[in-house]
């Protein structure tokens, strides 16, 4: 069902808050993967606010929907969202990256409530998500699994092992996203290791592909709705995004894959986010 204006307004408010949170935690932590966290904001927000059947009071509820954030370096945004959803106190994130903190850059599911899979090493998440989806099927359960891949991550051969198996096992209870922000650590994806034609690759592996603007809630909703109703083949949503989205001096700048923010930069970053939502 298309999103209403009121729903979009609420989602935008959540996204704006999450961008502020990501900036704050980057400041507290001394350094974080801020660019890829900002590109992922709308995908995370719409999943948590609109699609995932979850109960933050019961993170281990067996019948909850699952999310595997395979691009685990987005942990800074993922943790902030989990806190805002009530899994834990947001103030705990002031210790991000610090000695014995439960929060490292790549979240540990055994330490952070609400994290369904510990990720960080790229190329692992889709396999785990497929296992979860097959696990639901084996047990006759109707919960759904979602997986978010980075685009650079799709260099990993294991992503394609998992893609082949997802189609082979017709795991249509799994929705896969690719956060296609077109940048990786060393430069543009097409310069470091070309991915295009990426949609054709997924099609060739047996997926139904939807390509959307990954910052457009309505477009994301339409694609996610499609993935939930399509039963002929698993669906991958290639979400075209902007690395560093919302912070003008970071957008599409490969240097902001990872970085720290001092007080001045935090103020500039927040002013830029404010403008995005003005």
């Amino acid at each position, binding site marked *: 069902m298309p999103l209403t204006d009121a729903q979009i307004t609420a989602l935008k408010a959540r996204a704006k808050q999450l961008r502020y949170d990501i900036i704050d935690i980057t400041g507290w932590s001394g350094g974080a993967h801020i660019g890829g966290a900002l590109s992922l904001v709308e995908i995370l927000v719409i999943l948590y606010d609109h699609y995932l059947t979850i109960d933050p009071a019961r993170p281990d509820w*067996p019948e909850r929907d*699952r999310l*595997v954030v395979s691009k685990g370096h987005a942990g800074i945004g993922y943790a902030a969202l989990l806190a805002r959803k009530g899994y834990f106190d947001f103030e705990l994130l002031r210790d991000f990256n610090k000695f014995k903190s439960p929060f490292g850059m790549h979240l*540990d*599911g*055994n330490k952070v409530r609400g994290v*369904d*899979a*510990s990720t*960080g*090493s790229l*190329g*692992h998440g*889709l*396999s*785990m*998500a*497929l*296992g*979860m*989806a*097959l*696990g*639901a099927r*084996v*047990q006759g359960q109707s919960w759904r699994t979602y997986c978010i891949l980075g685009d650079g991550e799709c260099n990993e*051969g*294991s992503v394609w*092992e*998992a893609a*082949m*198996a997802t189609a*082979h*096992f017709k795991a249509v209870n799994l929705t896969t996203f690719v956060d296609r922000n077109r940048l990786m650590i060393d430069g543009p994806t097409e310069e470091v290791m070309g991915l295009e034609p990426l949609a054709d690759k997924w099609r060739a592996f047996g997926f139904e592909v939807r390509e959307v603007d990954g910052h457009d809630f309505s477009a994301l909703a339409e694609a996610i709705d499609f993935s939930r109703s399509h039963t002929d083949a698993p669906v991958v949503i290639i979400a075209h995004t902007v690395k560093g989205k919302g912070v003008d001096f970071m957008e599409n700048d490969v240097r902001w894959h990872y970085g720290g923010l001092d007080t001045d930069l935090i103020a500039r970053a927040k002013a830029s986010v404010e403008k995005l939502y003005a």
Partner: protein
Amino acid sequence: MSEGLTWTVYDADAMTQAEIYGQVLCDLGQRHPEIVGLSADLAKSTKIGCFGDRFPQRFFNVGIAEQNLFGVAAGLAKAGLVPFVSTMAVFTSLRAAEQVRTDICYQNLNVKIIATHSGSSFGQAGTTHHCTEDLAVMRSFANMTVIAPADGIETANAVRAAFAWPGPVYIRIGRSFEPRFYDSEDYGFQIGRAIELHPGTDATLICCGVTVRPAVEAAKVLSQEDGLSVRVLNVHTLKPLDEAAVMRAVTETRRILIFEDHNTVGGLGTAVADVIAASGKGCAFVKTGVPDCFCEVGYPEDLQSHYGLDTDGIIARVRETMNLEFEADEDWEDEV
């Protein structure tokens, strides 16, 4: 064959180590719907295929894709199931090492790995299919339990015990042409508890897997021909290691000889040496295995002979070791 029967009713003489494993898994699967099976185009070779034939909805052959194999297993465990995964030891411990470490051990998931064709058991296949590193690799993963059963019957015990044991377990078996050692399953197998198979006070042979049977044979010969009293320990569990049994052997026999179908670096010998070194006790200590080289090609029995892991090799090594001198510890007798 009906479910729930104990092992001794199986025709263990006619069944290989892996066939027995496959049968035990089927029996467990009959009683426990949470068990699922996975392989990577080796369902037939690893014998997990019989589980797949019996429970096709609970079996996943992911093709020749070992990284995905262990990642999917992790996801299934996350969904509340108990995956048993089988492929060759070399692909488990090396090709998919990171998935085993990061997806399974780091998350402390209830995944049971039965790795076949370990050591030199598929010796004729060459180095690509040998696996003389798996014990070193798997021991170094936190949360992992590591078991190397002596034969098919011990494999049956290990598989059942692994199901009852929380967390990840690695069970290393051979290619399944290994001779049977145990007569029945009823000998008190417990994870983490070494088994004394032959009493002795002059030396202790510490073994696992395929070296257990020749070590017992060697102890008998050494008793008859040399009048030596040689203890044999089946240390089927490398982690958690039975440190008390090791230290009893050190204090009571003062000569420790390790025999393992594995690189002499990082496996059973290293695990035992760590315990002895930390104790501050001195003893004669000799490791026999594949001496930090890639294993030659050949049939397993020829390779075991070549590396001194058969009965004759073990006897010769004990005789050499009896002549070794080592410095006595003045306080030793008080502490024994």
